[in-house]
Structures are given as C-alpha cells and as structure tokens.
C-alpha cells in the first residue's frame, strides 16, 4: 500500500533545518522496532515520548553501581544515591530556571502535581464561593482535581472560552478575572489543539489583580524553553515521560513563598522533621511534599533526559518541529475529507484531525497496520471534544525524532483509509 521505507533506505542526514535527524534517530533504540512487519512510525509523543539511550543508560548505571534508598543511610551507596537524586533536582531547577532547587517537588506525574496544589494550597486557602479559572482546552488532569475541590469546599469553576481555531479568548479571560478569583490554572500548550497559550500575558493579567497562576506544562515543556522566573509563574507542572524521560516521576515547581505556606499533601517517612505520637513537625519544602521512598532512578533518568534535550537545544528542536508541523499541516490537507482541529496561529507540533468517511478509532486501527502509532480518542479532554462537537479525533503528535518521511507514511496510510471507507 505504501512504498515508504524508512529503514531500508538511509534516513536523510539532516532535515531542512540542519538538525542531524539521522543521528538523533539512532539515539532512540525503539525506532528500529517493526510493528505488523512495518517500520514503526511513532506519532504519539504527546501521550508519552520514547526514550533516548542516555536515559536508559543512566538508569541502568544507577541500578548497577549506585543504588540505595535516599536520605536514610550513613553508608556510601545511600550517600551516592542521595547526591544523584538531589543533583537531579538541581538539573530540573536549571532547566526551568527556578530560583532555588527547594522549589522543585518530585511527584509521580503532572496529575499528582496538580492534585497536590489543589489539595494542599486549595484546601488551605480556598473558601466557598471562591473562583478558579480554567480554560476550555484543559486535560482532565487540570479539571477533575478542581471539581473534587468544588464538591468539597463549594468553590466555583470559571471556564475561559476558545474560538474555532482553538485560540484562547483573552477578552473573555480578562472579564472572568473578578474579586472572587483566587487562582488561574491553564495549560501552557494544548495536548489536542497544539495551541500555545500566551502565558506571559495570562500571568501578568492575573498578577495585576494579585491572582496566582498554575500552568500545566505537560506539552509545552517538550517543545519550548520554559523560564519560570521570566514568566513569573506561581506553579508549573509537568511529567518526565513526555520529555523523553521515564514514567513514574513528575515535577511541581512552586514559588518558595507559596510552597512554604502549604501543609503536607501526604504523610509518612522522608517528609518529617520529628515525630512523636503527640506532635509531628514537618520538613521544609520540597521534602515536606515527598512522603515515602521517591522514584529515585526515575529522577536520575529525568536528569539524563533534560541533559539530552538541552544538549540538542531548543533552538534546533524548535526549528525542526516547526518544519515538521508545517509540512504535516500542508500534506494532511491533501487527504480528501480530512479536517484539522486546532488551527491557532501559535501552535506546537501536534495535529488533531477528523475524516468525513471514518471514525478516529477506525482510522487508528487501519493505520496501525501500516506501522503508524497515533492516538484516537478524546485525549482526556472531553469538554474540548464537546466544544468541537466531535466524540473523538485522531492526533499525530510529533517529537524531536520524527521526520518528513513519517509524515508521508501517515498521509499514504490515510489514503488507504479513504479507499476502504471512501
């Protein structure tokens, strides 16, 4: 059905942006995998990204040479593990330019990071009738924790609308900021539409009224440089697994001033200063929020992923992905009956689409047989699906290792869908 042959023919040495895509692809062992007898074309990095060899090696090396629990033993390995774990925190700090490593809390994932803020900060500072502003393009991870709080405390959720292209309505946003607004929690980049929201403007408008802002950076962190001090953002959350790092670890960045006012989220070991049955005192942030044995090897893997990404540099990654996005957008429009959902002028490398002839699920199944992995479904953003009056979309989400040949493979496979259903 397709003449495309990524692994039979040598991949192009570099793409049109001068990025050495062939070398980058060699760093990701899984890209040599075949699925259904076809070369894997992985276009689902928005759900979770594949891992480069340095990440796999860092974790393996740690387990083979340095592994022990952290913050506990006087023995050498515990000291080494603790050092590496805290160095990973410092790597994250540098990556997002936080003022202090104490502002970096390790969690399980972005979802837990948001739940932590909702439970600890929200549970302490919000009262019935207080308002939290979300947007119409949020992932369920940035909706449901606030709904739990609404059910618990009687807070009110206000939703910033978007236009048909998927751009946030900033006038409506300004109007929603009112005397009862206590927090703005919005995605930095949409996992469905690809829209990159105007974070600096969102934050400065909220701050002019004394309102703190949480940004869900799950998608943005993989596509753009993020400087939390330049943004002046109050909370920033992301997961390692979308940033070419391991599963099981996420980040909550919070300004020191905010974290220090927040009570623990969970209780246990590692987060206490002293415990007696009468009274327990807690450690300072970030350890106050890290009860129990953390994901140690995963923190080290995350640090390796950050080193890998920063080694390539966001200038190069950004140019490469912008080229892919433009190419994919143009090529996909040649498929009869295909509609792109999310056409905001400021977008990252994600293309969601529907086809007149076929349901996203059927599209996903058919192109899977051509080796192409996309996500088909509601992408944990059901309110957004409602906004566009669709049950689901297909989503091709690109990572730094994707190339134009893979876009061609996607388009060829979609032509087959059209053949079957047309």
């Amino acid at each position: 059905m397709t003449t495309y042959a990524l692994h039979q023919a040598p991949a192009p040495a570099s793409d049109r942006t001068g990025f050495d895509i062939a070398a980058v692809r060699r760093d990701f062992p899984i890209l040599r995998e075949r699925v259904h007898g076809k070369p894997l074309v992985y276009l689902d990095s928005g759900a979770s990204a594949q891992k480069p060899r340095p990440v796999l090696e860092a974790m393996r090396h740690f387990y083979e040479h340095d592994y022990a629990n952290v913050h506990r033993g006087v023995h050498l390995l515990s000291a080494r593990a603790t050092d590496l774990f805290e160095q990973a925190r410092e790597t994250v700090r540098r990556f997002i330019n936080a003022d202090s490593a104490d502002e970096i809390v390790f969690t399980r994932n972005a979802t837990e990071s948001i739940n932590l803020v909702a439970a600890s900060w929200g549970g302490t500072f919000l009262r019935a009738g207080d308002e939290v502003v979300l947007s119409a393009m949020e992932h369920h991870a940035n909706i449901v924790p606030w709904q739990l709080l609404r059910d618990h405390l009687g807070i009110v959720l206000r939703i910033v609308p978007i236009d048909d292209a998927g751009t946030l309505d900033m006038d409506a946003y300004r109007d929603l900021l009112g005397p009862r607004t206590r927090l703005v929690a919005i995605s930095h980049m949409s996992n469905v539409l690809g829209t990159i929201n105007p974070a600096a403007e969102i934050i400065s408008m909220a701050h002019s009224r004394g309102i703190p802002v949480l940004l869900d950076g799950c998608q943005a962190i993989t596509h753009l440089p993020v400087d939390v001090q330049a943004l002046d953002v109050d909370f920033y959350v992301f997961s390692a697994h979308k940033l070419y790092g391991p599963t099981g670890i996420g980040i909550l960045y919070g300004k020191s001033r905010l974290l220090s006012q927040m009570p623990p989220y969970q209780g246990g070991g590692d987060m206490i200063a002293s415990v007696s049955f009468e009274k327990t005192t807690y450690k300072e942030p970030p350890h106050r929020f890290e009860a129990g044995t953390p994901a140690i090897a995963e923190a080290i893997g995350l640090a390796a992923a950050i080193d890998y990404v920063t080694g390539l540099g966001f200038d190069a990654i950004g140019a490469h992905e912008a080229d892919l996005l433009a190419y994919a957008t143009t090529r996909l429009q040649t498929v009869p009956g295909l509609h792109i959902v999310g056409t905001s002028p400021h977008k990252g490398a994600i293309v969601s689409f529907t086809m007149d002839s076929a349901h996203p699920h059927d599209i996903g199944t058919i192109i899977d047989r051509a080796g192409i992995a996309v996500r088909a479904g509601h992408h944990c953003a059901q309110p957004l699906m409602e906004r566009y009056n669709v049950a689901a979309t297909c989503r091709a989400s690109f990572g730094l290792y994707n190339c134009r040949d893979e876009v061609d493979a996607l388009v060829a496979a979609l032509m087959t869908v059209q053949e079957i259903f047309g």
Partner: protein
Amino acid sequence: MAFDDLRELYQEVILDHGKHPRNFRHPPEANRQARGDNPMCGDKITVYLTLAPSPSGEDVVADAAFEGRGCAISQASASLMTEMVRGKTVAQVRALFENFHDMCTKDDALHGDHGDVDEDAMDRLQVLSGVRQFPMRVKCATLAWHTLIAAVDGGAKTSTE
C-alpha cells in the same frame, strides 16, 4: 500492510451497517432503555427495547432500536444486533449475547454452551468475528450488547470498563 486482517474486520456488511445503521431511532413506545459509554473513546449509545408479553407469558422483544455515535464497528454491531434480537424471548437474547461475546473474545474451541441459540443469527453475526484479531477493538463490538443486557435487566447506565 496486513491488509487481510483489515479486510476481515471491515467487511462490506460492516461498512454498510456502519454507514447506514438500521433501527437508528428512538421509538416512543419503548419500555426499556439503557445507556452505554465506552470511556476509552468517548463513544455513547442508547438502546431502546419494546418488550411485550408472549402467549407463553415470557417477554419477547417486539422492537429494538438504538441511537448514539461511535466507530464503524460499534455502529454496525448495534445495527446488526437490533435486527437479530427482534422476536426473541429474553432468555434467547441472553443466550445470543453470551455466544456473541464468546465469538468476539475467545477461540472457537473455547466457546461455552449457553443453551438454545439461534444459529442463523450467529451466522450473520459472524461478520464481526474479525475483532478477535484486534483486542483493542473488542469493546467497540460488545458495547451495544452490554447495553442491551442492561436494558433487559431494567435499564441503567452501563460501561465497557
């Protein structure tokens, strides 16, 4: 491309029922209904049944219909189902469900004995057996049937999860 599996899955009958689902309506006289959700993909379906007592005293499906949205597999499955269950007693509907479920999920050798089943109906439903090669799609084929059983049982919300 492993085209054979796909041809097996997307047979003409499926494509036809998927595009032009039969009994896609909400009969005002329906006396049972249930809603089914597939939380994985957001597909939703409502099954409407009109049950009427037969001379033997057993309830019989006088009419079956559905509404909802979903993929070709789920729409075709619901459409075929509404055709297959009409005229059947509740016990026969249950037996058909069990057989259909086995067909979608188990090798032939492992199919259980679910009592008196309409072999002709099973033959026609055979077009959906292709889903067995697509484990991620089995729920698309069975959602309507789970919802049907929920409607028979009195009508509640059901979910494939």
